[in-house]
């Protein structure tokens, strides 16, 4: 298979602080006049990328993951020639289109139609190419009746759809996409993902930065994990995402201690004391994956015998939406009495049908 991208020992250095100083010609001249031979203070250096090397074959769809500030966007910017590397080499074969933002170069005063031509041209399309695809772009965006209205009158959603519609009609050999899926409503995101899926089946080479692990796992054939400017791991999306998610587990300990939780209520006669994940083979684990079977073990401590207790669990998304609310009472599990002392309760999950996300638990016993 032919090579689409070759990156060799790529490094990019930013000098912090230098941007605040020395941005005025007047001050620069004055400081030169005052002390012509003084050397400036040693700069504060940040390596956004350090010795990054990898190759991508034509037709591969590579997901790039990593924490904020890890260097993912800088990597994309270097690949799309927006910024120059401090050292190292990048070779990209074929026509590159980079989509670091939806609707780059849109001008408020221009109409939808004019902006389609402008944006298409900025993204590297030829005029007649845009003309040929105009109808399709307009349909995709669903802005037909506002085509000759200045986009300053558009809603945010319309603007977004228009921008993505143009981008979706690009026909590059290599497509570089930054987190564009993070914006927009569910319908828009689905549209984006479908378009990306179309690219993949079309044999395009795609580099794709995302924090959406489900999208990376579903779309990509390979995954790069960038950490502090270096390639930490390169492999199949499943493995890399697992290793990456592992670092989010707060501690190496598999048992989460609940005794120090602050916002407790109730009489304190019985308390949850800990919570751990146990794999189907019986070992404690720190990361669970979509589709896994595993057990959540809730430890408790009772001060005195509790008669007919009900153990309950609510799970919330990061945004506070309730995902599930269950309890032993819901399932008509009768527990006549819990003796004083420590004990635990297992919640068996046969198939975790949740997408990768961060969730919050709210536990109760009554």
């Amino acid at each position, binding site marked *: 298979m032919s090579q689409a991208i070759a990156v060799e020992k790529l490094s990019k250095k930013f000098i912090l602080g230098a941007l605040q100083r020395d941005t*005025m*010609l007047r001050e620069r001249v004055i400081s030169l006049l005052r002390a012509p031979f003084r050397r400036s203070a040693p700069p504060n250096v940040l390596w956004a990328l350090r010795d990054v090397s990898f190759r991508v074959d034509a037709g591969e769809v590579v997901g790039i993951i990593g924490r904020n500030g890890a260097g993912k966007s800088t990597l994309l*910017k270097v690949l*799309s020639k*927006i*910024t120059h590397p401090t050292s190292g080499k990048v070779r990209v074969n074929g026509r590159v289109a980079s989509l670091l933002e939806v609707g780059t170069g849109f001008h408020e*005063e*221009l109409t939808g139609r004019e902006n389609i031509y402008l944006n298409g041209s900025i993204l590297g399309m030829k005029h007649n190419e845009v003309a040929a695809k105009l109808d399709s772009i307009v349909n995709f965006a669903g802005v037909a009746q506002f085509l000759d209205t200045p986009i300053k009158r558009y809603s945010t959603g319309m603007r977004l759809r228009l921008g993505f519609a143009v981008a979706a009609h690009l026909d590059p050999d290599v497509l570089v996409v930054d987190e564009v899926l993070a914006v927009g409503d569910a319908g828009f995101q689905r549209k984006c993902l479908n378009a990306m899926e179309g690219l993949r089946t079309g044999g395009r080479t795609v580099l794709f930065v995302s924090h959406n692990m489900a999208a990376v796992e579903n779309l990509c054939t390979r995954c790069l994990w960038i950490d502090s400017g270096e390639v930490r791991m390169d492999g199949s999306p499943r493995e890399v995402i697992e290793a990456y998610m592992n670092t989010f587990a707060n501690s190496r300990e598999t048992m989460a201690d609940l005794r120090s939780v602050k916002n407790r209520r109730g009489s304190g006669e019985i308390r949850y004391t800990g919570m751990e994940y146990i794999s189907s083979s019986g070992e404690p684990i720190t990361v669970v994956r979509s589709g896994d079977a595993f057990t959540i073990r809730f430890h408790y401590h009772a001060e005195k015998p509790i008669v007919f207790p009900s153990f309950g669990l609510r799970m919330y998304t990061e945004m506070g939406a309730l995902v599930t609310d269950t309890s032993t009472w819901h399932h008509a599990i009768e527990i006549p009495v819990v003796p004083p002392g420590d004990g635990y309760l297992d919640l068996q999950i046969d198939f975790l049908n949740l997408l990768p996300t961060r969730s919050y638990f709210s536990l109760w016993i009554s």
Partner: protein
Amino acid sequence: MNSEWIADFWRYRELLYFLAWRDVKVRYKQAALGASWAVIQPLLTMIIFTLFFGGLARVPSDGIPYPLFSFCALVPWTYFSTILGHAGNSLISNAQLITKVYFPRALLPAATVLSGLVDFSVGAVVLVLMMMYYHVKPGWPLLLAPLFFAGMVVLAFSVSMFLAALNVRYRDVKYALPFLVQIWLFVTPIIYPVTFLPAKIRPLLAFNPMAGLLEGFRSSLLGRKQMDWRLEGISVAITLVLLVIGAAYFRKTEKTFADIV
């Protein structure tokens, strides 16, 4: 300048056209008087100059009616000075593009230079009408006028590249720009003819390429005066040198634009 840089520029010529088209569209879209601004500005300046310099100060004008004399220089000068003001800020005002998409950065000052041609054309039509009103019949040197104007376009592009790049690095350049344009107006024979200057100072004019190009433009259209070939030659040569310097400085600094703009 090397060939790859120029080839890249050529490959993106369609985007150049679109960026210029955008500038023109946006400029005329919400302007109540539309294209007439392109006429009003040099016309009003001409009237003021005629009253104060031609009338009160009795500045000579090589035997040409003063309104025609000053307007003939003001049309290209208005183009040149407007471009300098806009192009100097062209990189800063398009920071969003620079940080999100690749294209030859020189397209931005170039697009400004190109979009100004629309205003110039409108002004040129008025100039032709004025020449007819004053019964000026230009001879064959008329054919040289477009060449002198082309020289001014190249000069505008060269200086713009330099100023735009400098402006990314040093933000106070934009405050110095209007001042620079104003001084340049007075050291260029627009209000006065070259012959108005003492003979001792006259050779210094050659260092201002705009002087030779404007004098050439005016002489070729109004044709009352012998062409000063030495001055024209030096002006063209300096323009070409400035083009190389402007492009070289731009090329040297453009790698960092996306990081500091």
